[in-house]
Structure formats: C-alpha cells, structure tokens
C-alpha cells in the first residue's frame, strides 16, 4: 500500500485485439477439427495472438523502463504471476488426478476388484495392469512396449533439474550487476532447455515409430501424451520466455534491484521443472 498517489496505466488496444485474435484462432481450430478446412483462419488467429502478446509485453517493458511503475505495480505483477502459476498447477493437477484415478480405481474395477467389480462383466477376459498393454476391448491396440525410465527420460530429468543451477547463477549474477555472468549462464540454461525439447521430440518419434505408444493406444497412450504433451508445451513456452530474457539482457534491460520480468521467468521455469519431476516419477518410473 503506497503512501503517495497511484499509478494507473493508460488505455491500450492490445487486449481487445487479443480477444478478437483468440476468437479467430478458436473458430479456425474448430473448423479444422470439424470440417477439415480453415487452416488459414486458424493460422491467422494464432499469428494474431502471438503478435498481440509480443506487442502488449513490449509496451509493458517500455513503460517499465521509463520508470512509470511504482512498488505497488511491482507487487501487482508478482501477485499476478504467482496466481497464474497456481492456476497452471491446478491444470496439471487435473491430469495427474486422471492418471491416479485410472490406475488406482478404474482399471482394477474393470478387472472385477472391489465394490464396483460388477464392471468385470463387460470384458470378462480383461486383466488390469500398468502400463496397460492390452485395453479391455481387443479392437483397441495397446502399446507394444514402454520406455525404460533409465534411458532418455532419466537424461531429460537430469537436464531439466540441473538447468535450475545455471538459471540461479544467472539470477545471482544479475543481482550483483555481473551482466556477463548472467548472459552466459542464461545461455547455458537455454541450451539445456533446447536439448530437453529435442530429446522429447526424439522420444515422441520413437513412441510412434517403434513403441506403438500413440494417442489411440488405450488409456496408457492417452495419459502418456496428455501429461508429457502439455508439459512439453510448457517447456517450449518457458524456453521462449527465457529466450526473451536473453535478448533483454543483451539490450541492457534490468537493474540489479529491479528485474521482476527475469524473476518471473525463473519462477515459471522452476514450475515446469517441478511438474517434470512428478511426471518422471508417476509416468515413467512407477
């Protein structure tokens, strides 16, 4: 609660343009999915959304560098980012909940266990197991084999967990005014992020080409791609944010005591990191 007068930002055309762009993107997406055409509309919408985000954030950066924002505005940004990450946590909570429900309740019940065991009448030959290699209905293919957690997934875990170290060093460097340190270690973080994304791409290729793990491969394939897919999307978003931070560092943005944009990107990266640890444990290991 500041003692002086308040800062209220000026009007902006980006929010309303962003709404329109998002609407166009959704209409295009729906047309592609339902009617198999409309890719152009979808692309225009997507480009519009990305452009609006870039321009809107640019305005905020410019205003911040003009020194228009006071301590209260800074706290509002922190609140906004923290609660946004909380909403993302709940988004993933729904997917982890799905995984647990399927593994702990749904499959054993289909196999005739417990209070709802009568469900076993549907597919008497079904045997519950995890990973579920043969779904109840034999017309639905299961995965041929699953990934060993101790190969690529372990490498990716190490990459993502270790990427927090250079990021923290970069942050410490920024706080001490050592911009070279910040730039170099941020670059190292970005390299790890890109490596992670590439390895994940390799794994997806392997999944479809050799392992029979597809979206259609019963509930195992569905939950595998739901969790790793949305996580991968968030890694790409997080890496993009870090890349923007790299450019901003290059251009001499941020000061040693005022760099919430950088801090927010660290928060986001750590969130992506923590989700992966959960994924590694419950999707790959157990």
């Amino acid at each position, binding site marked *: 609660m500041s003692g002086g007068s308040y800062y*209220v930002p000026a*009007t902006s055309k980006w929010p309303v343009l962003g*709404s329109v762009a998002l609407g166009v993107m959704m209409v295009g997406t729906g047309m592609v999915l339902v009617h198999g055409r409309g890719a152009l509309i979808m692309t225009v919408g997507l480009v519009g959304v990305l452009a609006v985000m870039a321009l809107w954030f640019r305005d905020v950066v410019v205003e911040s560098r003009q020194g228009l924002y006071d301590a209260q505005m800074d706290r509002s940004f922190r609140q906004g980012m923290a*609660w946004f990450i909380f909403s993302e946590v709940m*988004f993933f909570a729904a997917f982890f909940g799905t995984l647990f429900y399927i593994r702990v309740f*749904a499959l054993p019940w289909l196999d005739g266990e417990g209070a*709802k065991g009568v469900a076993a009448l549907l597919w008497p030959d079904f045997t519950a197991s995890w990973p579920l290699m043969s779904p109840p209905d034999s017309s639905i293919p299961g995965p041929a084999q699953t990934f060993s957690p101790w190969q690529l997934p372990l490498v990716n875990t190490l990459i993502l967990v270790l990427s927090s170290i250079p990021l923290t060093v970069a942050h410490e460097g920024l706080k001490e005014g050592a911009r070279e340190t910040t730039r170099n270690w941020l670059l190292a973080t970005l390299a790890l992020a890109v490596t992670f994304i590439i390895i994940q791409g390799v794994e997806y290729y392997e999944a479809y080409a050799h392992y029979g793990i597809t979206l*259609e491969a019963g509930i195992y*394939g*569905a939950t595998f791609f739901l969790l790793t897919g949305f996580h991968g999307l968030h890694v790409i978003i997080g890496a993009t944010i870090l890349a923007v931070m790299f450019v901003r560092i290059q251009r001499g943005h941020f000061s040693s005591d005022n760099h919430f944009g950088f801090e927010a990107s660290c928060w986001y990266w750590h969130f992506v990191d923590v989700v992966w640890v959960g994924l590694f444990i419950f999707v790959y290991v157990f």
Partner: protein
Amino acid sequence: MAPKLPPHHPVEQSTSAVAGGNAAAHPEPPRGILRWLLTTNHKEIGSLYLIFSLIMFFIGGIFALVVRAELFQPGMSLIRPEFFNQMTTMHGLIMVFAAVMPAFTGLANWMIPLQIGAPDMALPRLNNFSFWLLPVAFILLLSTLLMPGGGPNFGWTFYAPLSTTYAPPSTTFFILSLHIAGISSILGAINIVATILNMRAPGMRMMDMPLFVWTWLITAFLLIAVMPVLAGVITMMLMDINFGTHFFNAAGGGDPVLFQHLFWFFGHPEVYIMILPAFGIVSAIIPTFARKPLFGYASMVYATASIAILSFLVWAHHMFVVGLPLAAELFFMYTTMLIAVPTGVKVFNWITTLFRGSISFEPPMLFALAFVVLFTIGGLSGVMLAIAPADFQYHDTYFVVAHFHYVLVPGAVFAIMAGVYYWLPKWTGHYPNVKLAQWHFWLSVVGVNLTFFPMHFSGLAGMPRRIPDYALQFADFNLVSSLGSFLFGASQLVFVAVVILCVRGGEKAPAKAWEGAVDLEWSVPSPAPLHTFETPPTFQRQQH
C-alpha cells in the same frame, strides 16, 4: 464490522475528485465505440460486464421459457425433443457462465476498488481483456445452435459419453468457446485477488474489509483453483472427440465416471462461486437497512472460508447413483452435510443483525430479505439431497431442479438485483423508482415461487428432469410452473425499465445514498466520477 470514515473525509475526497486535480494525468478517453473497446477503467468495465450479463440473462431466459412452454401441458406440443435438449443445455450454460458469473464480476469491478479505496483494479488492461473475451466466447457458443446437427444437447454438465461419442459435431466449437470463457474467468479472478491483496487503502487490514470484498477474495481463489480443472476436462473431451483417445471410454481402459469426477471437482466449487459474492452483497445490505453493524463479522469471514474449503471435498454428492464405493458415499454425504454448519452461521448472523434493528424496506432490502428466506429453502432441500440413500430417490428428478433454482434464482439472481438496487444511486446519481422497483420485487417473488415451488412436489412424485414430455399426473404442477415462469420472465422487463429510468433521471442521490451505509464507496460523490481515490484515502477503523 463497520469501517467508518472520519467525518471530514467524504468532503475532502469528493472535492479532490470533482476538481479533477489530476486531469492532466488522464488524457481525454477516445470517443464513441472505441472508448468502450479500449477502456481500462474499472467502472466502465464493470458496466460492460453488467450490461453483457443482463443481455445474456434475457437470452438464457428465453431458452428457459421455450422449455416451460413445451412443458405447459403433457404431450409433444411445440418443439422437437432434440431442440428441447438444446434449450435446456443452452439455458444452463448461458445462465451459469454468461449471466450470473459476469454479473458478479461486474459488481466486483465496480465496487471492490471503491470499497477498498483503490483507484482502479490492480491490472487494468488485463481487466479489459477479461471482459472482451466474453462476447467472443458466447457469440461462438450461441452460434453452435445454427450449426449442422444443432448445438450442445447433453445438459449443462455435458457428461461423457453423451458429450463425446454421441455428441453433435458442434461440440468441438462448444469446447473452444468454453476455453475462452475460462481464460476470461481465470484472468479476471487473478486481477481481483491482486487488487484486494495489494491495493487496499493504507490502514485497512484484511479484517477491516467489507464482506463483499472478503467473499470475492475467496470466490476468486476458487475460480483460479477450479477453472483450470474445467479447462483440463474439456481438453480431454476434445481429444476423445478429435484425436482418438479413450479417456472416457472404458473399452480403451478409460472411465466415463472419471469425467463426472473431474467435472464436479470443478462444478461444486463453481456453485459456491455463484453464491459467495451473493452472501457478501446481502451482508452489506442487511446492516444498512437494519441500521446496525453486521452481527458476527469475523464469523462471517470464517464461515465463508470454511464453505470454500469444504467445497473441494464434496463433489461426488452429485454422483451418488453412479455406483460409488460405500466409503465414498458416506464420506461425501457427511462432508456435504457439514456445509450446512457455516451456511447456518451466516443465516443466523443475518437474522441476528435484523433483531431489534430499525428496519426499513427500500428495494435493495426487499430483495435481500427475500434472499435470506428463499435461499434458506434451497439450502434445506440441499441437505435433503445430501443424504445419500434419500438421493437415490431424488436424483435426476425435478426436486433437484427445484433445489438448485432456489439457490440460484432467488439466491444468486435476487442478490445481484439487490446489489444493483443498492449501488444504482452510486453509479447513476439517482435513486431507482421505488414504485416500479416494488412492482418488480413482488412480481418476481410471486413468479419465482410459482415456477419453482411446485417442482419440489413433481420431483418427489418422480418426474424426471430434462425430458420434454411427462405423465398426466404431473400436469397441474407443470401448468403452474409454466405460468409462473412467464410471470417471472415478464417482470424482469420492469427491472430493465427501472434501470433505464434510473440512468436517465430520478430523485438525486447524495454521496451517502442510504442512511445506514458505512463503507468507503459512500464517501465518493454520486454518481461516482470516472476516477476516484487517485490518492489513497486514510482509512479509519471503527472500534467494534
């Protein structure tokens, strides 16, 4: 709790605001339509939300009247069953997501900054974005009615596999429109939390905040927690429909019941999202017109928080007949009945506030009092439904319809109307026309009870919900319900008339429009100027 300003303060605030000492800081807003498209002002965005919600209230209301017209007498008389299903579904979706929720967000936009002494919302541009997503989302949703195969026809709860395997092609568009609405809700809620936690006037502690602010803080927390779960479950639907996954298909190892768990993990907190701000409004109005401080301010806060926490632990009471293990039936039955305790605390506090008060019956008070009585009826039928063995009889009957309409129409909607009547003088500078408002009130009360009270009886007698035809023994109850619904619908036109007349003129209202009102919003002039509290007011706590 009744924060009061030092006596000299209102004058000081009003002069500085009227004189526009900061005029240079605010360039002339763009004129015409652009002003509304670009606005970042919490009052203008609040008005946009309220107008949008009123329009959607009428669209959703027309859908409801189509349903009631078909049910006026037994037999298939007016519309095809497929269209009937689309009408029940769209009525629910529009009323929940496009009428009630935006109305509360509109009130939050207008009143939270005024009640905590802030110049605006914490993130004004995000605020504009949150609003303008809504027309985009709901134009897309309404357009599904015109698509081949029709719009959503699986009920507002869109249970899989009705909404996946057996759904019309437009379902993909329905999912995408709900995604946009969800983004709007999450961003709006983040903004409200940041505003309340960060923008309070110096000296205003959390426990000094008006209850409308408190209830909205907790509501916004619920929104941020559960709207992403809704986004998750509709994404899984989208994948089942378009990408061949088997989340809700047991043949592939999935489970249709999983859909219900995920949906109601969102859905139950959602129903509290639609009632907690109503509690806040009523907790402002009753003390004002009873001319007594609210009884049990702290217990109101704790009760609100308890209801919010419990709301995460009760979701499966919507699923008692789906075949849950006995332990789950018992757990969800007991947690659900526990909610009656904090809710009872609230009703007790409202009644105790009225006790020996100097009560007057201005229009906001009429609606607030009707809220207390009629919401309690809905709450009590909720306790009946919470009893798992009894629910086996009530499930999917008109008794359930009666229950949730009592908490949502004379509950949430009456509270919104009470809030509108209460704050209209602050928004427009004029009092609403009392005679017309009284007509609106009495017609609404009669209409709402004629519509929904008979549903208790037809439901207990076994009439199923969401069916366009019914057995002859239900004819009389349905006739009364249908007549009541048209009376209620028509009486809302009176409401529109009151609002329009109030905007255009009427008896002038002073800054403190109601004699017993105490919160900060009554310290700024009526109508509130476009920019208020440009320098933070000094908040003086009243000892209580």
